[in-house]
């Protein structure tokens, strides 16, 4: 059997030793524990005794050579004629029969009692599984709040589907890429060149989004912009909902090239239906008619009932119309699901219900998400017309103007005639990334047709 002679570790910090000289030659027979070589380390010089009896077959390290600890210095072939089998060389020594060294009289108690056996505590039960909940991290919560992100829309790639900073960054980058491909990438490059350890000033993490909206990033810190507030001025820090609205508006304007088109709608048939209903004790506003008409037109113009995801347009199957409702705390946008399947009275009832619950703060978060198109009605003080901002990631929105009686020219049996009609400017904004003029204009024209025809069956 070949036995290795190794460089011992003589000292805790010692990592190598130097072979000083060999005391045997290759081929020589050696006895167990007879000196083989001298070594030197940082701490000690030593003679290395042979680990076995036998013939030195190989010497692997030359004098003067530095070798690491445990490296093989030589090999010894154990010679059966010299070395006895282990069992004979080390016969079993029996304490009981030979009486040595256990000679002490064991008459008294053991000096110490045996330690008690103990049982480990049972492991606590694992926490119950959490299903259907979006898992996020603190930085993601902050980014979502700052940017008004709908976290349910961001695919999480972390453990258990957790949404991480990386996921949000990827999501934001995909949004940015679709709008400003060139400008965006330039800004990413600029950001990478920034120092690796940023200045102590707190900076939101996502580079492209932050660069796109610097004023917002600063304001989101909740700090007054001016250090000194002139007497009488009042600083009103943004509430969380205000921050979200602000962020959303900026992002939408930045993301979507808005085209605003206007239709002048003759509402006299709608007014007639309202008057009839009122006699029956039913109070209808104009809004449910517009919702009804829009839902119908959306069914006919699928591209308007869509959302943008990354570099794709998702044509939504369901028609879910988000209706803006003003509340004390700010604007809320609850969603009427499957508005196209609802009757006028159902729409009316739902809108009234939303209005009441939004004011009392009882709208659930679920009712605020999933819209595919939006309608905003500023009400009787809504002025002539306005240009609404698209509710991202949707692609279109309608805004009702003030309904005003006006003299208009109508076709009365082949003859032009001037009559008094309740007229409304209806504005539609659409995302020109996704929607071309033909589709956008066609949609609004169709809404007007339905409203003027007064067919709400």
């Amino acid at each position, binding site marked *: 059997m070949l036995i290795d002679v190794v460089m011992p570790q003589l*000292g*805790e*910090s*010692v*990592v*190598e030793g130097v072979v000083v000289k060999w005391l045997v030659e290759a081929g020589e027979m050696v006895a167990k524990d007879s000196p083989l070589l001298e070594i030197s380390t*940082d*701490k000690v010089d030593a003679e290395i005794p042979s680990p076995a009896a036998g013939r030195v077959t190989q010497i692997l390290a030359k004098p003067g050579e530095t070798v690491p600890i445990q490296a093989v210095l030589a090999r010894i072939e154990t010679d059966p004629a010299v070395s006895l089998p282990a069992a004979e060389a080390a016969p079993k020594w029996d304490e009981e029969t030979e009486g040595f060294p256990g000679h002490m009289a064991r008459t008294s108690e053991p000096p110490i009692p045996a330690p008690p056996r103990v049982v480990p505590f049972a492991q606590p039960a694992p926490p119950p599984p959490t299903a259907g909940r979006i898992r996020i*991290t*603190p*930085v*993601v*919560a*902050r980014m979502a709040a700052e940017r008004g992100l709908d976290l349910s829309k961001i695919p999480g790639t*972390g*453990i258990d589907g*957790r949404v*991480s*900073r*990386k996921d949000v960054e990827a999501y934001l980058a995909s949004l940015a890429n679709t709008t400003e491909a060139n400008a965006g990438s330039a800004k990413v490059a600029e950001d990478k060149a920034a120092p*690796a*350890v*940023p*200045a*102590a000033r*707190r*900076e939101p*993490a996502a580079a492209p989004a932050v660069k796109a909206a610097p004023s917002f990033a600063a304001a989101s810190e909740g700090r007054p912009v001016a250090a000194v507030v002139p007497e009488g001025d009042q600083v009103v820090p943004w509430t969380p909902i205000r921050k979200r609205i602000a962020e959303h508006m900026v992002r939408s304007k930045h993301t979507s090239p808005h085209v605003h088109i206007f239709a002048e709608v003759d509402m006299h048939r709608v007014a007639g239906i309202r008057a009839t209903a009122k006699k029956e004790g039913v109070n209808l506003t104009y809004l449910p008619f517009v919702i009804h008409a829009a839902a119908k037109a959306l069914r006919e113009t699928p591209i308007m009932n869509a959302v943008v995801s990354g570099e794709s347009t998702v044509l939504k199957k369901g028609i879910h119309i988000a209706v803006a409702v003003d509340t004390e705390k700010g604007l809320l946008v609850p969603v009427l699901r499957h508005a196209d399947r609802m009757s006028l009275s159902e729409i009316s009832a739902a809108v009234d219900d939303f209005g009441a619950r939004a004011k009392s703060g009882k709208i659930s978060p679920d009712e605020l998400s999933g819209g595919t198109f939006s309608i905003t009605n500023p009400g009787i003080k809504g002025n002539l017309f306005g240009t609404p901002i698209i509710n991202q990631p949707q692609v279109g929105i309608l805004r009702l103007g003030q309904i005003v009686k006006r003299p208009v020219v109508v076709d009365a049996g082949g003859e032009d005639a001037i009559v008094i009609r309740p007229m409304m400017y209806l504005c539609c904004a659409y995302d020109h990334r996704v929607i071309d003029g033909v589709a956008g204009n066609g949609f609004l024209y169709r809404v007007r047709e339905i409203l003027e025809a007064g067919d709400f069956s």
Partner: protein
Amino acid sequence: MLVTYIEAIRQAMDEELARDKNVLLMGEDVGVLGGAFKATAGLQEKHGADRVVDMPISESLIVGAGVGLAVQGMRPILEIQFIDFISCGFDQVVNSAATLRYRHGGQTACPIVVRGPSGGGVHGGLYHSQNPEAWFCHVPGLKVVAPATAYDAKGLLKSAIRDDDPVIYFEHKFLYRRIKEEIPAEEYLVPIGKAALRKEGRDLTVITYGAPLHAVMKAARDMASEVDIEVIDLRTLLPIDWPAVKASVRKTGKVLIVHEARLTGGIGGEVAARIAQDCFEDLDGPVMRLCARDVHTPFAPAMEEYVLPNQEKICEAIRKLAAY
């Protein structure tokens, strides 16, 4: 100049003994023997037995005498043969040295350095493997440093000797002869209280100090294709360089703290708590720690390996945190 970590320590003492006649070195076997690890080899011969003093086996005396010398304006370097034995001089460190300036209302300074070999991974067993730095980080009035490179070992020791407050200097014996490093031939100092950014990265920060730095750096290199790791070497444990820590956390959002000292009550707990408090909204995952298990450092290699952090465990922790 290519030097080992222990040679860097020796040079620092040699240079400071030569530079300032008020510097002196005391400890067990530091003179004729040149130290149990040879950290003081040749210093008694060069600087004299009055200034490189072989002391009796009396750690309490070594530290206490150092305090007395310090009040007289001397700058003693006090070697504890194994830092595990500092417990025998604990009272003099925490009650005598640490409060000296305070209890005298600022009338005096306490420019002592208590240094000695710490750390495991060398099969040293229960009393030659300890990492007791956390004991001292709990004591106001002390400064605590733990270099991981030969460059820092020299620069920090020189700074510690010149510092007017008591500095506990942990030198890791695993590194003594395992590190060979180019250091400048000309004199330099490494400031106390400044961390070192050892590697920049975007995805995750590893905060460490002492011997595990080398395993962390290797892990960072080996895993470069999977995750972009930033590595911070604290170097000074009291006071910790919080701006460096926070800047990195704000950048990466994920933190793993690695130290060889035990988990419970270790420095990592303090670092994690500060991050949780000051960087909560920047976190993209839980602050994680990889430390020695809560048990003594055993002798048998398999058990020692089981107890102490190593590269494999570091990689595993990094993967877990990166995936979070």
